[in-house]
């Protein structure tokens, strides 16, 4: 594009508005639906199981894609969390191990 940094293509703005609308609908939609569903003990147990299930489903494909190095880093993070219960230390260790492994060519 040659019009300069402060111009914007109308078509592109349409894309951004569409992406924003879809994402907001998803952000608010699940919350909205749950306001109209009676929260029975079964539903509540399902909702309680969601966070762990979402995290596992999010990081497992990252490990499968990233290979041994990434998997090792996440194990380090979880182990550090079990032992020290400080998220920032866990994250620091994981990043340090990743940097080390990559410097070693893994």
């Amino acid at each position, binding site marked *: *594009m040659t019009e300069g940094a402060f111009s914007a293509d109308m078509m592109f703005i349409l894309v951004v508005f569409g992406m924003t609308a879809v994402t907001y609908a998803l952000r608010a939609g699940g919350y909205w639906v749950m306001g109209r569903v009676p929260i029975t003990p079964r539903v509540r147990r399902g909702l309680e199981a*969601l966070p762990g299930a979402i995290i596992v489903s999010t990081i497992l494909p990252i490990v499968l894609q990233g290979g041994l190095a990434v998997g090792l880093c996440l194990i380090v993070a979880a182990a550090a969390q079990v032992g020290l219960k400080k998220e920032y230390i866990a994250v620091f260790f994981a990043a340090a191990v990743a940097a*080390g492994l990559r410097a070693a060519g893994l």
Partner: protein
Amino acid sequence: MLEKNVTLSLKGCTHGALMCVPVLPGIVALGAVFGTVAAQKGLTFVETVLMNSLVFAGASQFVAMEIYSDPLSWGTLIAMIGVTGAVNMRMLLIGASLRPWLGQVPSYQTYPALFFLTDLNWLLTLTEYDKGTRDWGVYLGSGLFVWSIWSLSVIPGYFAGSLISDPKAFGLDVVLPAFFAALLVPLWKGKRQTVSWFIAGGVAAVTWAIVGGYWSIFTGAIAGALAGAYLDD
């Protein structure tokens, strides 16, 4: 089953924002990389900032930029919006799981606040809820903080893309997944979690192997939630 004593305070907001500090390097690096990608693809600065701050969902922005081509056709437009929906489908579940926590807060406050919903502040909020916190400032503060950092981090990336030539060399790409792995630890309470996580992981891995992409988050999460709902102790 709604929570009855939910409050909102500045102290809660500050606490929520501070909880995000460990992952700042990860957010800044990811935002900067998006700025660089956008510049390389030929977006103007305004276009980059608009997309980054309004959509505010990292993975979907990257995938949409994979599809982008200039000049934009209607087909590309639909594809970019569609892929955004697919990647962000998990937000339906994330939002749903906040209902018991935030359901009592007036809707004129929750619905604008849901714009700032991300995996990160959602997870921090639920972790705090588990510990007994009932101040939803934790959600709002962390959301606003992450949004501000995300919005700013794209700027250096757009203008000086080569500053961090390879975030991987510094391990910055593992910061967010490592944070999630760490936050998973206190969620484990016993057999119910073990079983539902195994089912979630299994379904996610199979989905990933067959269709790839981001559907695995959605299928795995639903399988895990169903398992959790139907496992009686």
